[in-house]
């Protein structure tokens, strides 16, 4: 009983993650600007990476395989999910910061307060 519940929760999480991954990949094309694509990258990292890994860990726990294989697969899935939840937001944060400061992509905005502060000298740490 409990293993069927685990299996269906895991399957639902994985399917949800797959759909979110597709949505994020379409969003990479639909959004026009680098700073807008950061939103799609968030969906792709957390929705398309974290959820399916937790779901696959639950699925692996519920299968009738050897206990060694089940524990290995779900352990690796949970560690990878934790790593993704830590690294993906930090990575896109530092990338967006460096991109804005170096002028690699100039944002198309009306008011840019960060740039005004940087020109005054307050933006530096």
């Amino acid at each position, binding site marked *: 009983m409990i*293993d069927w519940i685990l299996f269906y929760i895991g399957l639902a999480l994985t399917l949800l993650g797959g759909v979110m991954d597709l949505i994020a990949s379409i969003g990479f094309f639909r959004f026009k600007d680098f700073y807008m694509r950061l939103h799609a990258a968030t969906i792709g*990292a957390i929705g398309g990476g974290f959820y399916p890994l937790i779901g696959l860990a639950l699925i692996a726990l519920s299968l009738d395989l050897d206990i060694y294989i089940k524990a290995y697969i779900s352990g*690796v899935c949970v560690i990878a999910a934790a790593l993704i939840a830590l690294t993906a937001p930090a990575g896109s944060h530092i990338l967006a910061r460096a991109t804005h400061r170096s002028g690699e992509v100039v944002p198309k905005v009306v008011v840019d307060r960060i740039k005004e502060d940087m020109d005054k000298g307050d933006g530096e740490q």
Partner: protein
Amino acid sequence: MVSYSVLEGVLPLLFGLFTLAMIIYSLRVFTSKSVSDMVLAVDALTIDLIIIFVLIGLYYKSPYLLIGVIPLAAWILILDIVVSRYLSKGDRK
């Protein structure tokens, strides 16, 4: 215990979803205008590939393929930091 054959019926659907997402991400990587766009798309592509690795491991019922997943998840952070450090000290226009 859930029989493995139940999962075997669902695996092609999961493979299809994530492979389609992989193809669209890689088209974004190939056609992007700036480096920042490309690195952002590589991040999302790599996270997609991690799940494909886990699915391949489940397909072969072999956990040994999965050990490569953890360095893959850590290297995307390094690629981000290296590219951003290069950009932030690169020649400004």
